[in-house]
């Protein structure tokens, strides 16, 4: 099944079969709504537990407000649900943590993830948040593949790794942004030291 033909749809785009199979409604943080089959939801441990806990009937699904997913935007959530619909019913892999991991990226997934790295980052974040094991596997594999054939210097650039000095500078900047008074106190302290004072107080 191609990415384009995946059954996830925005709620206002098409008529949705609601008999027999239950389709849940979810809303992204930018108010995009999606209908997702019960079977597809099982790919996400987080959502599966959520809908089980809610115990919705078919009527509830239609009549109650869509379930809000507040920290994922519509563009990302669409990819997530497309993936879940395509892989619905598949066994969820058990990760024993060992290496080397052997994960092949299926053609569908490769096409789905033919996106810019900003969106890929959001997709991984969403897969982690929603606990979708295999989507996390394939998306992380794609990130790992970026290291192929790279020199050490290129590796640093590929994974945007700052030096210790850059990290320190960023940390200082973040602290100052959080608490401008801290910088003022520090400057005052330095000024008193210059004037020969032994104690700040």
């Amino acid at each position, binding site marked *: 099944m191609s990415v384009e033909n995946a059954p996830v749809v925005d709620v206002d785009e098409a008529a949705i079969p609601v008999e027999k199979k239950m389709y849940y409604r979810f809303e992204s943080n930018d108010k995009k709504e999606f209908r997702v089959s019960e079977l597809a939801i099982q790919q996400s441990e987080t959502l599966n537990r959520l809908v089980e806990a809610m115990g919705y009937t078919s009527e509830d699904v239609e009549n109650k407000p869509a379930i809000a997913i507040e920290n994922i935007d519509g563009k990302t959530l669409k990819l997530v649900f497309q993936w879940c619909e395509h892989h619905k019913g598949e066994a969820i892999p058990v990760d024993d943590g060992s290496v080397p991991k052997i994960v092949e990226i299926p053609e569908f997934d490769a096409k789905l993830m033919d996106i810019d790295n900003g969106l890929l*980052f959001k997709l991984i974040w969403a897969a982690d948040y929603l606990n979708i094991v295999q989507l996390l596997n394939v998306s992380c*594999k794609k*990130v790992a593949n970026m290291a192929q*054939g790279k*020199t050490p210097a290129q*590796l640093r650039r590929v994974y945007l*790794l700052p030096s210790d000095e850059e990290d320190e500078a960023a940390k200082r900047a973040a602290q100052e942004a959080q608490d401008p008074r801290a910088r003022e106190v520090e400057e005052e302290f330095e000024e008193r030291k210059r004037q020969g004072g032994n104690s700040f107080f």
Partner: protein
Amino acid sequence: MVVESFPILRLPSLAREKVLKFLIPIQVFLLSQFSKRMRYAVKSEYRNTGQELSVSVHSSSMLICTHFSGKITGEFYVNEIEISNEWGMRIGSKSFKKRFIRLTLRIYNRNSQEYTKQLLEEFIDVFSFPIAKMSFSPDKEDYKSMIQWVNTYSQKTQLIIVNGPRVPVERYFYVLEHLESPNNVEFQLLIEDHDSRSSRIPTFRAEKIKFIYGDFIRLRHLKSFNGKEYIIREATINDKELNEFLRGLAAGANPNLRRLKLERYGKAVIDDVLKNLRAGKIGEYSDYEEQWSFELENGNQAILTYDELLPRIEESSIDIVINRD
């Protein structure tokens, strides 16, 4: 060419752990060297991977391999000969072997042993893999400091291999006296002038002791070991000497020994080997394999198996297993 980029440090920990575990160990090690933050991430997330280290140290070089289920997942080669201190190899290029890759760290104008020590420390710190095997050659003049170095890892190393070309018997004795290994030790050394020395042979302690070239092992040397298992290939021990050893064993010598295997023993006259041990034949388990048992003074039982290989009689072996309570 535009290099694509991805902020790996901003990923959730579980996702970054997955990315790291998809990478080969060489890439993970390189990443750990870029910054303190990345090093911390590698140390805390690249764990429990089931991988092991094997380390081979020489005077001017060191090879560290990472393994998973017996297969090599990475090779780190440290060599002082090259005239560059750059990490010059391109990872994943076609010049590497297909099944794994090697990273060469070239040292120039530095104390190579110090550098290799530091690098190994770094490896163990970053990866926290168990050391499955550590091998070294006492063939150069710096063998004393090398043994001292190996000793710092002997407690956590499963197998230490002492290898190399011919070494003088004095140097071999130094290894016996100073190598601290409570685990397994395998000697793959050829010893020079082993007949010329008549002074005391040092006691050597290890759980398992194996000699690949054991032709210099005679009765006196065999008695000097203190361990649970000895496997010696081509020992120069005759039936009468072996009988003397077994009688000592029956009388209470070598109280820790649970197994002695003499590989490539050659033709044995079992009546001579078991003389005065009141041994009884257990049976024949194959055309060539026969077993006898005899009792030690403390009531434990020993079983001797003689595997006579024909027509290659020189490859026949004797295996003695002591059932300690």
